[in-house]
């Protein structure tokens, strides 16, 4: 799964730590989501999308294996 979190973070001038604080997770969790190493829960995906003023569909790009 690819994400546009890094791109949108840059648009809003947010660091990983800023975003982590906004959505209530640890910085490493944001890092692993950006790298595609961790699939967040629907609740966290929604929180991140809301914090970056976008939708889950726009934020995550699902790839068939």
């Amino acid at each position, binding site marked *: 799964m690819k994400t546009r979190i890094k791109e949108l973070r840059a648009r809003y001038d947010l660091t990983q730590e800023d975003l*982590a*604080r906004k959505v*209530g997770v*640890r910085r*490493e*969790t944001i890092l692993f989501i950006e790298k595609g190493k961790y699939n*967040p829960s629907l609740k*966290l995906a929604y929180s991140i999308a809301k914090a970056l003023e976008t939708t889950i569909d726009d934020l995550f790009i699902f790839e068939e294996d």
Partner: protein
Amino acid sequence: MKDKIGIVVGIGIAAAVLVTLSFFVLNAGNLELNEIIPPGIVLILVASALYILWDRIKNVRKGLPAKDERLKLTNYKAGSYGFIAAIWSAVFAPVSSEIFFDYELPGSQVTAVVVLCGGLAFMISYLYLAWKGS
């Protein structure tokens, strides 16, 4: 607040284990190599636990949660691996001791092996999964 209580309780438990361990080592006299291994493993477990606590303190100081959904998942996974290791060692330790060393392990030693194997498997898998990402 819940995070801070968890950290304080964790530090308290680690301190209690270290005090108990130091009492054991001070009163044990001359220890042989095979007698040093169990306290050594306990020391590794305590050091790993202190590292995890230090990591949590660092996050709480930054205003981030000590634990989030990823770490809770890591905890569950590591817990299940620790449980499997404990069950496996409970069966393997007495059987292998009899087969390879012709020595019947007393119940207390089997318990020690089970606790140490379970703890070690938990700690290794927790640190690995936390570092790997999922």
